[in-house]
């Protein structure tokens, strides 16, 4: 592997997270003092504070919420006296049975695969950083980029429920109500977005430098 020059933190330099200005870190910068970027005022950190612990906490919270999000119904359709509750999976199955398989695939991918994939990738990244793995850091950084980009698309089911609730509003003829599963599902999406934001991909690269010492 090509030897890279030492990273900014080892030359007492911090890149501003917001405007990218390169700032000089004070001689003993241990996080005790709050340093701000002279240009944009953002708080400077050599690495995101407590990144591993915070990301773990959020990942575990999301995993816990993921269970009721999938077990509980996300909406109930009342039509001519008949009520039918749908979970995320049964909603996708309904679409599949009615021949709308591209849509079923889309919902299954956005609502079931994406959140789970995101959590699995984050857990893998967390463990690999904690084990000081030096294995394919470039690909692991790419995995991180994927988790950052795909998370938002899980919101699609929440929006579908919102739109259906607004549209199907016909008294006894047909009404749709949102159910608790949707709340948990929304929480999973928001928590995983925060989890991706608190993970610091630079930690992946730090292990490579430590082993040179």
């Amino acid at each position: 592997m090509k030897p890279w020059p030492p990273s900014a933190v080892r030359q007492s330099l911090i890149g501003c997270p917001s405007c990218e200005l390169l700032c000089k870190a004070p001689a003993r910068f241990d996080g005790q003092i709050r340093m701000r970027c002279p240009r944009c005022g953002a708080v400077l950190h050599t690495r995101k504070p407590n990144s591993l612990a915070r990301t773990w906490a959020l990942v575990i919270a999301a995993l816990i919420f993921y269970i009721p999000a999938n077990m509980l119904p996300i909406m109930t359709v009342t039509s001519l006296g008949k009520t039918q509750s749908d979970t995320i999976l049964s909603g996708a199955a309904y679409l599949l049975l009615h021949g709308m398989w591209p849509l079923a695939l889309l919902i299954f991918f956005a609502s079931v695969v994406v959140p789970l994939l995101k959590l699995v990738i984050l857990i893998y990244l967390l463990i690999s950083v904690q084990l000081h793995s030096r294995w394919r850091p470039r690909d692991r950084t790419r995995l991180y980029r994927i988790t950052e980009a795909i998370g938002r698309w899980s919101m699609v089911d929440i929006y579908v429920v919102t739109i259906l609730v607004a549209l199907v509003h016909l008294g006894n003829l047909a009404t749709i109500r949102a159910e608790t599963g949707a709340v948990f599902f929304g929480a999973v999406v928001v928590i995983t977005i925060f989890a991706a934001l608190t993970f610091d991909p630079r930690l992946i690269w730090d292990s490579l430098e430590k082993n040179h010492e």
Partner: protein
Amino acid sequence: MNQQTRITCHECDLLQQLKPPPPGGCTRCPRCGAVLHRSKRNSLNRTLALSLAGLILFIIANTFPFLAFEMQGQITETQLFTGVTDLYHQGMWGLAALVLFTTIIVPAVQLTLMLYVLVPIKLGRTPGHLAGVFRLLQTLTPWGMMEVFMLGILVSVVKLAGMATIVPGLALWAFGLLIFVLAAAAAALDPHRVWEKVRYAP
């Protein structure tokens, strides 16, 4: 002066000289491959024009009828905001807040602040609190989810198409256009051009 062209990669912390991107291309970090700088021609003017168009479309999308749903002679007409109020009335205030935040508040604040930043710059002035405002804009970016909402609309329409007639309203077309305008505005913006305008004492 030399320090200004030196940057550190935000994804792997590699210290490097920032090379200007080739026209139409981008500069990537040689170590981790993160995009460091993308070439954007006439960035501020184009972003300003697109944000202005975006704000007009946003207002149309939020004031005109969005979708109407017709079933056995009964019609419900909705606006973009109706879903939020209905969720709230069903006791789902958390969901209502989430939808309100990601599809209405964030895009509205983003468009307004973008104009607040770009109009004075266009007129040769520096807007007050430029650094703080622009930082807030960057923080809000991951929370604006209009394009996901558009996908939600498509899914809902297909789902209901078998049961009833869906009549698209003017707001729906405005909303569809708005997605492209917002994406184009985000693609046109070169944050470096804005940060250059911030005066500071190093």
